[in-house]
Protein backbone atom coordinates (compact mmCIF):
# COMPACT_ATOMS: atom_id res chain seq x y z
CA UNK A 1 0.00 0.00 0.00
CA UNK A 2 2.77 2.44 0.85
CA UNK A 3 4.29 1.85 -2.59
CA UNK A 4 0.99 2.87 -4.10
CA UNK A 5 0.83 6.10 -2.10
CA UNK A 6 4.43 7.04 -2.88
CA UNK A 7 4.08 6.41 -6.59
CA UNK A 8 0.75 8.25 -6.61
CA UNK A 9 2.28 11.26 -4.84
CA UNK A 10 5.19 11.26 -7.28
CA UNK A 11 2.85 11.13 -10.25
CA UNK A 12 0.68 13.92 -8.83
CA UNK A 13 3.71 16.13 -8.20
CA UNK A 14 4.99 15.37 -11.69
CA UNK A 15 1.64 16.27 -13.26
CA UNK A 16 1.06 19.44 -11.23
CA UNK A 17 4.57 20.69 -11.91
CA UNK A 18 4.88 19.77 -15.55
CA UNK A 19 1.62 21.45 -16.55
CA UNK A 20 2.68 24.86 -15.25
CA UNK A 21 6.29 24.06 -16.18
CA UNK A 22 5.39 24.00 -19.89
CA UNK A 23 4.55 27.69 -19.72
CA UNK A 24 7.72 28.46 -17.76
CA UNK A 25 9.89 26.74 -20.36
CA UNK A 26 8.13 28.52 -23.22
CA UNK A 27 8.45 31.90 -21.51
CA UNK A 28 12.17 31.29 -20.83
CA UNK A 29 11.53 31.45 -17.10
CA UNK A 30 12.64 27.95 -16.17
CA UNK A 31 14.80 29.13 -13.28
CA UNK A 32 11.88 30.84 -11.56
CA UNK A 33 10.78 27.49 -10.13
CA UNK A 34 14.18 27.05 -8.55
CA UNK A 35 13.98 30.59 -7.20
CA UNK A 36 10.50 30.21 -5.70
CA UNK A 37 11.25 26.88 -4.09
CA UNK A 38 14.25 28.39 -2.30
CA UNK A 39 12.70 31.76 -1.58
CA UNK A 40 9.74 30.37 0.37
CA UNK A 41 11.98 29.20 3.22
CA UNK A 42 11.64 32.34 5.37
CA UNK A 43 7.86 32.16 4.91
CA UNK A 44 7.85 28.61 6.22
CA UNK A 45 10.09 29.49 9.16
CA UNK A 46 8.11 32.58 10.17
CA UNK A 47 4.83 30.68 9.92
CA UNK A 48 6.39 27.89 11.93
CA UNK A 49 7.53 30.31 14.60
CA UNK A 50 4.08 31.89 14.81
CA UNK A 51 2.04 28.70 14.52
CA UNK A 52 4.46 26.51 16.41
CA UNK A 53 3.89 23.34 14.42
CA UNK A 54 4.87 21.81 11.11
CA UNK A 55 1.37 20.84 10.15
CA UNK A 56 -0.39 24.14 10.01
CA UNK A 57 -2.16 25.57 7.05
CA UNK A 58 -0.42 28.76 8.19
CA UNK A 59 2.86 27.33 6.96
CA UNK A 60 1.46 26.82 3.48
CA UNK A 61 0.04 30.32 3.42
CA UNK A 62 3.28 31.85 4.69
CA UNK A 63 5.23 30.03 2.02
CA UNK A 64 2.85 31.00 -0.75
CA UNK A 65 2.89 34.64 0.37
CA UNK A 66 6.68 34.83 0.35
CA UNK A 67 6.72 33.00 -2.99
CA UNK A 68 4.55 35.70 -4.53
CA UNK A 69 6.62 38.41 -2.85
CA UNK A 70 9.71 36.91 -4.48
CA UNK A 71 8.01 36.92 -7.88
CA UNK A 72 6.96 40.51 -7.36
CA UNK A 73 10.48 41.61 -6.39
CA UNK A 74 12.02 39.78 -9.35
CA UNK A 75 9.58 41.47 -11.69
CA UNK A 76 10.22 44.88 -10.14
CA UNK A 77 14.00 44.69 -10.38
CA UNK A 78 13.69 43.40 -13.91
CA UNK A 79 11.52 46.34 -14.90
CA UNK A 80 13.98 48.77 -13.36
CA UNK A 81 16.74 47.50 -15.63
CA UNK A 82 18.33 44.43 -14.01
CA UNK A 83 18.47 41.46 -16.43
CA UNK A 84 15.90 38.87 -15.41
CA UNK A 85 18.41 36.12 -14.58
CA UNK A 86 20.36 38.41 -12.29
CA UNK A 87 17.25 39.66 -10.53
CA UNK A 88 16.13 36.06 -9.97
CA UNK A 89 19.54 35.29 -8.52
CA UNK A 90 19.61 38.27 -6.18
CA UNK A 91 16.09 37.79 -4.85
CA UNK A 92 16.04 34.09 -4.15
CA UNK A 93 19.47 33.91 -2.57
CA UNK A 94 18.63 36.86 -0.30
CA UNK A 95 15.36 35.32 0.86
CA UNK A 96 16.88 31.89 1.26
CA UNK A 97 19.78 33.29 3.26
CA UNK A 98 17.31 35.07 5.55
CA UNK A 99 15.47 31.79 5.99
CA UNK A 100 18.60 29.85 6.89
CA UNK A 101 19.65 32.49 9.40
CA UNK A 102 16.18 32.41 10.97
CA UNK A 103 16.36 28.64 11.22
CA UNK A 104 19.78 28.76 12.85
CA UNK A 105 18.75 31.51 15.25
CA UNK A 106 15.40 30.31 16.50
CA UNK A 107 14.73 26.74 15.65
CA UNK A 108 17.95 25.03 16.54
CA UNK A 109 16.31 22.77 19.11
CA UNK A 110 12.98 22.46 17.40
CA UNK A 111 11.99 19.92 14.87
CA UNK A 112 12.37 21.80 11.58
CA UNK A 113 14.92 19.94 9.63
CA UNK A 114 16.53 22.06 6.96
CA UNK A 115 17.62 19.10 4.89
CA UNK A 116 14.12 17.76 4.98
CA UNK A 117 12.61 21.01 3.74
CA UNK A 118 15.14 21.12 0.94
CA UNK A 119 15.28 17.53 -0.13
CA UNK A 120 12.08 16.24 1.41
CA UNK A 121 11.54 12.59 1.96
CA UNK A 122 8.85 11.17 -0.20
CA UNK A 123 9.33 7.86 1.58
CA UNK A 124 7.60 9.29 4.68
CA UNK A 125 4.53 10.34 2.72
CA UNK A 126 2.35 7.29 3.54
CA UNK A 127 2.80 7.74 7.32
CA UNK A 128 1.59 11.30 7.49
CA UNK A 129 -2.10 10.74 6.85
CA UNK A 130 -5.16 12.94 7.00
CA UNK A 131 -8.03 11.93 9.22
CA UNK A 132 -11.53 13.27 8.95
CA UNK A 133 -13.93 12.28 11.72
CA UNK A 134 -11.57 9.53 12.71
CA UNK A 135 -11.49 7.99 9.26
CA UNK A 136 -8.13 7.70 7.54
CA UNK A 137 -8.56 9.18 4.07
CA UNK A 138 -5.03 8.79 2.80
CA UNK A 139 -1.76 10.73 3.02
CA UNK A 140 -1.88 14.48 3.44
CA UNK A 141 0.58 14.99 0.61
CA UNK A 142 -1.74 13.25 -1.84
CA UNK A 143 -4.55 15.61 -0.89
CA UNK A 144 -2.41 18.73 -0.91
CA UNK A 145 -0.72 18.06 -4.22
CA UNK A 146 -3.95 16.71 -5.69
CA UNK A 147 -5.73 19.96 -4.86
CA UNK A 148 -2.88 22.02 -6.35
CA UNK A 149 -3.06 19.91 -9.50
CA UNK A 150 -6.83 20.33 -9.68
CA UNK A 151 -6.45 24.10 -9.34
CA UNK A 152 -3.87 24.25 -12.14
CA UNK A 153 -5.93 22.05 -14.45
CA UNK A 154 -9.10 24.06 -13.88
CA UNK A 155 -7.48 27.47 -14.32
CA UNK A 156 -5.36 26.53 -17.30
CA UNK A 157 -8.23 24.77 -19.02
CA UNK A 158 -10.48 27.78 -18.43
CA UNK A 159 -7.97 30.34 -19.69
CA UNK A 160 -5.96 28.15 -22.07
CA UNK A 161 -6.22 30.62 -24.94
CA UNK A 162 -5.06 33.54 -22.80
CA UNK A 163 -2.14 31.66 -21.23
CA UNK A 164 -1.05 30.52 -24.68
CA UNK A 165 -1.03 33.95 -26.26
CA UNK A 166 0.57 35.55 -23.18
CA UNK A 167 3.50 33.14 -23.39
CA UNK A 168 3.89 33.47 -27.15
CA UNK A 169 3.47 37.18 -27.70
CA UNK A 170 2.78 39.30 -24.61
CA UNK A 171 2.79 42.55 -26.57
CA UNK A 172 0.11 41.32 -28.91
CA UNK A 173 -1.85 39.91 -25.97
CA UNK A 174 -1.79 43.32 -24.31
CA UNK A 175 -2.86 44.96 -27.56
CA UNK A 176 -5.97 42.77 -27.86
CA UNK A 177 -6.92 43.59 -24.29
CA UNK A 178 -5.77 40.55 -22.33
CA UNK A 179 -4.56 41.60 -18.84
CA UNK A 180 -1.04 40.26 -19.32
CA UNK A 181 0.15 41.19 -15.82
CA UNK A 182 -2.81 39.39 -14.25
CA UNK A 183 -2.05 36.21 -16.16
CA UNK A 184 1.63 36.52 -15.32
CA UNK A 185 0.86 36.60 -11.62
CA UNK A 186 -1.80 33.91 -12.02
CA UNK A 187 0.80 31.62 -13.58
CA UNK A 188 3.37 32.54 -10.92
CA UNK A 189 0.68 31.92 -8.28
CA UNK A 190 0.09 28.45 -9.72
CA UNK A 191 3.84 27.80 -9.70
CA UNK A 192 4.02 28.92 -6.07
CA UNK A 193 1.06 26.79 -5.02
CA UNK A 194 2.34 23.72 -6.83
CA UNK A 195 5.82 24.26 -5.40
CA UNK A 196 4.68 24.81 -1.85
CA UNK A 197 2.13 21.99 -1.87
CA UNK A 198 4.66 19.58 -3.31
CA UNK A 199 7.91 20.29 -1.67
CA UNK A 200 7.16 19.80 1.97
CA UNK A 201 6.49 16.18 1.16
CA UNK A 202 8.87 15.54 -1.69
CA UNK A 203 11.54 18.22 -1.40
CA UNK A 204 12.42 21.29 -3.40
CA UNK A 205 14.73 19.52 -5.80
CA UNK A 206 12.08 17.13 -7.12
CA UNK A 207 9.71 20.05 -7.60
CA UNK A 208 12.23 22.13 -9.53
CA UNK A 209 13.17 19.14 -11.64
CA UNK A 210 9.59 18.26 -12.49
CA UNK A 211 8.86 21.89 -13.36
CA UNK A 212 11.50 21.89 -16.07
CA UNK A 213 12.79 18.50 -17.19
CA UNK A 214 9.57 16.87 -18.49
CA UNK A 215 8.34 20.06 -20.25
CA UNK A 216 11.76 20.58 -21.89
CA UNK A 217 11.68 16.94 -23.04
CA UNK A 218 8.19 17.38 -24.48
CA UNK A 219 9.37 20.61 -26.16
CA UNK A 220 11.79 18.50 -28.18
CA UNK A 221 9.06 16.13 -29.30
CA UNK A 222 6.18 18.26 -30.52
CA UNK A 223 5.26 21.58 -32.08
CA UNK A 224 1.84 21.92 -30.43
CA UNK A 225 1.31 23.40 -26.97
CA UNK A 226 -1.59 21.06 -26.15
CA UNK A 227 0.47 18.00 -27.00
CA UNK A 228 3.47 19.40 -25.18
CA UNK A 229 1.45 19.55 -21.96
CA UNK A 230 0.11 16.00 -22.40
CA UNK A 231 3.54 14.59 -23.27
CA UNK A 232 5.21 16.31 -20.34
CA UNK A 233 2.62 14.96 -17.88
CA UNK A 234 3.16 11.46 -19.30
CA UNK A 235 6.95 11.81 -19.14
CA UNK A 236 6.73 13.16 -15.58
CA UNK A 237 4.53 10.27 -14.43
CA UNK A 238 6.74 7.71 -16.15
CA UNK A 239 9.82 9.16 -14.45
CA UNK A 240 8.15 8.93 -11.03
CA UNK A 241 7.09 5.31 -11.49
CA UNK A 242 10.41 4.13 -12.95
CA UNK A 243 12.32 6.33 -10.48
CA UNK A 244 10.55 4.75 -7.53
CA UNK A 245 11.45 1.22 -8.56
CA UNK A 246 15.00 2.23 -9.44
CA UNK A 247 15.32 3.76 -5.98
CA UNK A 248 14.09 0.67 -4.21
CA UNK A 249 16.46 -1.47 -6.25
CA UNK A 250 19.44 0.78 -5.49
CA UNK A 251 18.31 1.53 -1.93
CA UNK A 252 18.74 5.27 -2.60
CA UNK A 253 16.79 8.54 -2.46
CA UNK A 254 13.44 8.23 -4.22
CA UNK A 255 13.19 11.90 -5.22
CA UNK A 256 16.76 11.83 -6.54
CA UNK A 257 16.07 8.71 -8.61
CA UNK A 258 12.91 10.21 -10.10
CA UNK A 259 14.86 13.26 -11.26
CA UNK A 260 17.71 11.15 -12.57
CA UNK A 261 15.26 9.08 -14.62
CA UNK A 262 13.63 12.24 -15.97
CA UNK A 263 17.11 13.45 -16.92
CA UNK A 264 17.74 10.17 -18.71
CA UNK A 265 14.52 10.52 -20.71
CA UNK A 266 15.52 14.09 -21.61
CA UNK A 267 18.89 12.89 -22.85
CA UNK A 268 17.22 10.28 -25.05
CA UNK A 269 14.92 12.93 -26.53
CA UNK A 270 17.84 15.31 -27.02
CA UNK A 271 19.74 12.73 -29.03
CA UNK A 272 17.01 10.80 -30.82
CA UNK A 273 13.92 12.99 -31.12
CA UNK A 274 12.54 12.45 -34.64
CA UNK A 275 12.18 16.18 -35.32
CA UNK A 276 14.86 17.80 -33.15
CA UNK A 277 17.26 15.03 -32.21
CA UNK A 278 20.98 15.71 -32.48
CA UNK A 279 21.81 12.34 -34.04
CA UNK A 280 19.18 12.42 -36.77
CA UNK A 281 20.12 15.98 -37.67
CA UNK A 282 23.77 15.05 -38.05
CA UNK A 283 22.78 12.17 -40.35
CA UNK A 284 20.60 14.49 -42.46
CA UNK A 285 23.46 16.98 -42.79
CA UNK A 286 25.88 14.26 -43.85
CA UNK A 287 23.40 13.23 -46.55
CA UNK A 288 23.18 16.79 -47.74
CA UNK A 289 26.95 17.11 -48.03
CA UNK A 290 27.02 13.91 -50.03
CA UNK A 291 24.27 15.19 -52.33
CA UNK A 292 26.11 18.47 -52.74
CA UNK A 293 29.30 16.69 -53.75
CA UNK A 294 27.45 14.40 -56.16
CA UNK A 295 25.77 17.38 -57.75
CA UNK A 296 29.09 18.96 -58.56
Amino acid at each position, binding site marked *: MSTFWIVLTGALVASACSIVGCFLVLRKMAMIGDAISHAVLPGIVIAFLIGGSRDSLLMLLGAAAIGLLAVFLIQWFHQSGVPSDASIGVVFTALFAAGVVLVSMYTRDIDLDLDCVLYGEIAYVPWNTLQIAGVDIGPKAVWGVGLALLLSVVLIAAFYKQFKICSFDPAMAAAVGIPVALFHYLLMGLVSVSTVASFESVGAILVVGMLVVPPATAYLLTEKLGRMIVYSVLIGCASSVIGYFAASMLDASIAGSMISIAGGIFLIALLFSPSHGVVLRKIKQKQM*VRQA*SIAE
Partner: protein
Amino acid sequence: MHKSPLSIHGLSVAYQKKPVLRDITFEVPEGNLIGIVGPNGAGKSTLIKAALGLIPRLHGEVTIYGKPYAKQRKLVGYVPQRESVDWDFPTNALDVVMMGRYGHLGWIKRPGSAEKKLALECLAKVGMADYAGRQISQLSGGQQQRIFLARALAQDATLYVMDEPFVGVDAATEKAIITLLNELKTQGKTVLVVHHDLATVKEYFDWVMLLNVRLVAFGPTEPTFTAQKLQETYGGRLTMLDRESPSALIVNGRSSDVDGSIHLA
Protein backbone atom coordinates in the same frame (compact mmCIF):
# COMPACT_ATOMS: atom_id res chain seq x y z
CA MET B 1 50.17 37.98 -58.93
CA HIS B 2 47.22 40.08 -57.93
CA LYS B 3 44.67 38.27 -55.78
CA SER B 4 40.99 39.03 -55.35
CA PRO B 5 40.06 40.51 -51.94
CA LEU B 6 37.46 37.80 -51.48
CA SER B 7 37.01 34.71 -53.53
CA ILE B 8 34.48 32.00 -52.75
CA HIS B 9 34.23 28.65 -54.42
CA GLY B 10 31.35 26.17 -54.12
CA LEU B 11 30.07 27.48 -50.78
CA SER B 12 27.06 25.72 -49.22
CA VAL B 13 25.60 26.41 -45.79
CA ALA B 14 22.70 24.80 -43.92
CA TYR B 15 20.90 25.72 -40.73
CA GLN B 16 19.45 22.65 -39.06
CA LYS B 17 18.21 20.67 -42.03
CA LYS B 18 17.40 23.49 -44.41
CA PRO B 19 19.99 24.61 -46.98
CA VAL B 20 20.43 28.38 -46.82
CA LEU B 21 23.12 28.77 -49.43
CA ARG B 22 23.85 26.44 -52.31
CA ASP B 23 27.01 26.22 -54.34
CA ILE B 24 27.98 29.89 -54.33
CA THR B 25 31.02 30.79 -56.42
CA PHE B 26 32.32 34.30 -57.13
CA GLU B 27 35.35 36.57 -57.04
CA VAL B 28 35.16 40.10 -55.70
CA PRO B 29 37.05 42.69 -57.80
CA GLU B 30 39.29 45.02 -55.83
CA GLY B 31 38.44 48.66 -55.14
CA ASN B 32 34.67 48.49 -55.55
CA LEU B 33 31.61 49.26 -53.53
CA ILE B 34 29.48 46.14 -53.75
CA GLY B 35 25.87 45.63 -52.68
CA ILE B 36 24.40 42.23 -51.84
CA VAL B 37 20.63 42.13 -52.32
CA GLY B 38 17.97 39.45 -52.27
CA PRO B 39 14.63 38.57 -50.65
CA ASN B 40 13.98 37.47 -47.05
CA GLY B 41 15.81 34.27 -46.22
CA ALA B 42 18.00 34.53 -49.32
CA GLY B 43 21.08 34.00 -47.17
CA LYS B 44 22.67 37.45 -47.47
CA SER B 45 23.87 37.72 -43.87
CA THR B 46 24.65 34.02 -43.88
CA LEU B 47 26.90 34.50 -46.88
CA ILE B 48 29.13 37.05 -45.16
CA LYS B 49 29.09 35.21 -41.85
CA ALA B 50 30.15 32.00 -43.59
CA ALA B 51 32.79 33.89 -45.57
CA LEU B 52 34.28 35.21 -42.33
CA GLY B 53 34.07 31.82 -40.64
CA LEU B 54 31.51 32.98 -38.06
CA ILE B 55 29.25 30.05 -38.85
CA PRO B 56 30.27 26.59 -40.02
CA ARG B 57 29.97 25.85 -43.72
CA LEU B 58 28.89 22.54 -45.16
CA HIS B 59 31.10 22.78 -48.16
CA GLY B 60 33.24 25.18 -50.15
CA GLU B 61 36.37 27.30 -49.98
CA VAL B 62 36.90 30.92 -49.02
CA THR B 63 40.08 32.88 -49.58
CA ILE B 64 40.96 36.48 -48.73
CA TYR B 65 43.67 37.88 -51.00
CA GLY B 66 44.53 34.33 -51.94
CA LYS B 67 44.91 32.92 -48.44
CA PRO B 68 42.50 31.43 -45.89
CA TYR B 69 40.76 33.96 -43.66
CA ALA B 70 42.53 32.81 -40.51
CA LYS B 71 45.79 34.23 -41.91
CA GLN B 72 44.31 37.47 -43.21
CA ARG B 73 42.17 38.67 -40.31
CA LYS B 74 43.93 42.01 -40.02
CA LEU B 75 42.95 42.86 -43.60
CA VAL B 76 39.23 42.52 -42.92
CA GLY B 77 36.94 44.97 -41.11
CA TYR B 78 33.57 43.58 -40.09
CA VAL B 79 30.46 45.54 -39.14
CA PRO B 80 27.86 43.18 -37.62
CA GLN B 81 24.17 43.94 -37.40
CA ARG B 82 23.40 46.48 -34.76
CA GLU B 83 20.97 44.20 -32.88
CA SER B 84 23.66 41.58 -32.39
CA VAL B 85 24.97 43.22 -29.22
CA ASP B 86 23.60 44.39 -25.87
CA TRP B 87 23.60 48.18 -26.01
CA ASP B 88 23.11 48.38 -22.25
CA PHE B 89 26.69 47.16 -21.79
CA PRO B 90 28.64 49.42 -19.40
CA THR B 91 31.00 51.13 -21.81
CA ASN B 92 31.28 54.31 -23.86
CA ALA B 93 31.59 55.12 -27.55
CA LEU B 94 35.36 55.62 -27.55
CA ASP B 95 35.85 52.27 -25.87
CA VAL B 96 33.82 50.44 -28.50
CA VAL B 97 35.83 52.05 -31.28
CA MET B 98 39.06 51.06 -29.57
CA MET B 99 37.88 47.44 -29.73
CA GLY B 100 38.72 47.69 -33.43
CA ARG B 101 42.40 47.70 -32.43
CA TYR B 102 42.19 44.59 -30.24
CA GLY B 103 43.03 42.27 -33.13
CA HIS B 104 46.25 44.21 -33.80
CA LEU B 105 47.14 44.51 -30.12
CA GLY B 106 47.33 40.80 -29.48
CA TRP B 107 46.75 39.11 -26.15
CA ILE B 108 46.96 40.76 -22.72
CA LYS B 109 48.39 44.09 -23.97
CA ARG B 110 46.04 46.99 -23.17
CA PRO B 111 45.12 49.77 -25.58
CA GLY B 112 47.26 52.87 -24.94
CA SER B 113 47.40 56.48 -26.08
CA ALA B 114 48.17 55.58 -29.72
CA GLU B 115 44.98 53.49 -29.88
CA LYS B 116 43.02 56.25 -28.20
CA LYS B 117 44.24 58.82 -30.70
CA LEU B 118 43.37 56.62 -33.66
CA ALA B 119 39.93 55.84 -32.20
CA LEU B 120 39.22 59.55 -31.78
CA GLU B 121 40.18 60.14 -35.41
CA CYS B 122 37.85 57.38 -36.54
CA LEU B 123 35.05 58.85 -34.43
CA ALA B 124 35.67 62.21 -36.09
CA LYS B 125 35.45 60.61 -39.54
CA VAL B 126 31.92 59.37 -38.80
CA GLY B 127 30.98 62.71 -37.27
CA MET B 128 30.80 61.41 -33.70
CA ALA B 129 33.80 63.15 -32.13
CA ASP B 130 31.59 64.93 -29.61
CA TYR B 131 30.14 61.65 -28.37
CA ALA B 132 33.37 59.88 -27.40
CA GLY B 133 32.55 59.74 -23.70
CA ARG B 134 28.86 59.00 -24.16
CA GLN B 135 27.48 55.79 -22.67
CA ILE B 136 26.41 53.61 -25.60
CA SER B 137 22.86 52.99 -24.37
CA GLN B 138 22.25 56.72 -24.70
CA LEU B 139 23.00 56.81 -28.42
CA SER B 140 20.33 56.73 -31.10
CA GLY B 141 20.15 53.91 -33.63
CA GLY B 142 21.96 55.95 -36.26
CA GLN B 143 24.67 56.97 -33.81
CA GLN B 144 25.16 53.35 -32.72
CA GLN B 145 25.61 52.39 -36.36
CA ARG B 146 28.21 55.14 -36.82
CA ILE B 147 30.09 53.84 -33.78
CA PHE B 148 30.20 50.38 -35.34
CA LEU B 149 31.45 51.93 -38.55
CA ALA B 150 34.14 53.86 -36.68
CA ARG B 151 35.21 50.61 -35.02
CA ALA B 152 35.61 49.01 -38.46
CA LEU B 153 37.66 52.02 -39.60
CA ALA B 154 39.88 51.57 -36.56
CA GLN B 155 40.63 48.07 -37.80
CA ASP B 156 42.44 49.76 -40.71
CA ALA B 157 41.46 46.98 -43.10
CA THR B 158 41.52 46.74 -46.88
CA LEU B 159 38.32 44.71 -47.21
CA TYR B 160 35.21 45.85 -45.32
CA VAL B 161 32.20 43.63 -44.82
CA MET B 162 29.00 45.22 -43.49
CA ASP B 163 25.76 43.54 -42.48
CA GLU B 164 22.76 45.81 -43.13
CA PRO B 165 24.39 49.08 -42.02
CA PHE B 166 21.38 51.11 -43.18
CA VAL B 167 18.71 49.35 -41.11
CA GLY B 168 17.02 51.62 -38.61
CA VAL B 169 19.17 54.68 -39.23
CA ASP B 170 18.02 58.19 -40.08
CA ALA B 171 18.50 59.78 -43.49
CA ALA B 172 21.44 61.93 -42.35
CA THR B 173 23.32 58.89 -41.06
CA GLU B 174 22.61 56.99 -44.27
CA LYS B 175 24.11 59.87 -46.27
CA ALA B 176 27.13 60.05 -43.96
CA ILE B 177 27.73 56.32 -44.20
CA ILE B 178 27.55 56.23 -47.98
CA THR B 179 29.91 59.20 -48.28
CA LEU B 180 32.37 57.41 -46.04
CA LEU B 181 32.08 54.19 -48.04
CA ASN B 182 32.84 56.09 -51.23
CA GLU B 183 35.87 57.62 -49.54
CA LEU B 184 37.10 54.12 -48.64
CA LYS B 185 36.62 53.12 -52.26
CA THR B 186 38.72 56.03 -53.53
CA GLN B 187 41.46 54.87 -51.16
CA GLY B 188 41.42 51.60 -53.11
CA LYS B 189 39.61 49.57 -50.47
CA THR B 190 36.90 47.04 -51.19
CA VAL B 191 33.53 47.30 -49.44
CA LEU B 192 30.86 44.59 -49.33
CA VAL B 193 27.45 45.68 -48.01
CA VAL B 194 24.36 43.58 -47.32
CA HIS B 195 21.56 45.85 -48.45
CA HIS B 196 17.77 45.73 -48.42
CA ASP B 197 16.59 48.84 -50.20
CA LEU B 198 16.34 48.15 -53.93
CA ALA B 199 15.53 51.80 -54.64
CA THR B 200 19.01 53.00 -53.70
CA VAL B 201 21.09 50.20 -55.22
CA LYS B 202 21.87 52.03 -58.47
CA GLU B 203 22.80 55.18 -56.64
CA TYR B 204 25.05 53.58 -54.02
CA PHE B 205 26.90 50.63 -55.53
CA ASP B 206 29.07 50.08 -58.57
CA TRP B 207 28.77 46.31 -58.37
CA VAL B 208 25.81 44.29 -57.22
CA MET B 209 25.17 40.69 -56.22
CA LEU B 210 21.68 39.22 -56.56
CA LEU B 211 21.25 36.34 -54.17
CA ASN B 212 18.48 33.90 -53.41
CA VAL B 213 19.98 30.76 -51.86
CA ARG B 214 21.83 30.44 -55.15
CA LEU B 215 23.83 33.19 -56.78
CA VAL B 216 21.53 34.70 -59.42
CA ALA B 217 23.82 37.38 -60.81
CA PHE B 218 26.99 39.26 -59.90
CA GLY B 219 28.52 42.08 -61.87
CA PRO B 220 28.70 45.83 -62.47
CA THR B 221 25.41 47.41 -61.41
CA GLU B 222 24.37 48.83 -64.79
CA PRO B 223 24.17 45.55 -66.76
CA THR B 224 23.35 43.35 -63.75
CA PHE B 225 20.63 45.21 -61.90
CA THR B 226 17.93 44.68 -64.50
CA ALA B 227 14.22 44.06 -64.21
CA GLN B 228 14.59 40.58 -65.62
CA LYS B 229 17.36 39.54 -63.21
CA LEU B 230 15.41 40.99 -60.28
CA GLN B 231 12.35 39.04 -61.33
CA GLU B 232 14.52 35.95 -61.32
CA THR B 233 15.82 36.74 -57.82
CA TYR B 234 12.60 37.76 -56.14
CA GLY B 235 10.26 35.48 -58.08
CA GLY B 236 6.63 36.56 -58.34
CA ARG B 237 6.91 38.87 -55.39
CA LEU B 238 8.09 41.81 -57.40
CA THR B 239 6.07 44.34 -59.29
CA MET B 240 7.49 46.96 -61.58
CA LEU B 241 5.89 50.32 -61.35
CA ASP B 242 7.98 51.71 -64.11
CA ARG B 243 9.66 49.27 -66.45
CA GLU B 244 12.36 51.75 -67.35
CA SER B 245 13.72 52.47 -63.90
CA PRO B 246 14.29 49.69 -61.39
CA SER B 247 14.43 52.35 -58.69
CA ALA B 248 10.64 52.32 -58.68
CA LEU B 249 10.38 48.79 -57.43
CA ILE B 250 7.93 47.49 -54.94
CA VAL B 251 8.33 44.18 -53.30
CA ASN B 252 4.99 42.46 -53.00
CA GLY B 253 3.74 39.81 -50.68
CA ARG B 254 4.90 39.71 -47.11
CA SER B 255 6.13 43.26 -46.80
CA SER B 256 9.52 44.53 -47.87
CA ASP B 257 12.85 43.04 -47.06
CA VAL B 258 13.51 45.18 -44.02
CA ASP B 259 12.83 42.40 -41.57
CA GLY B 260 14.98 39.98 -43.55
CA SER B 261 17.85 40.64 -41.25
CA ILE B 262 15.91 39.49 -38.22
CA HIS B 263 14.73 36.48 -40.11
CA LEU B 264 18.25 35.41 -40.85
CA ALA B 265 19.99 36.30 -37.66
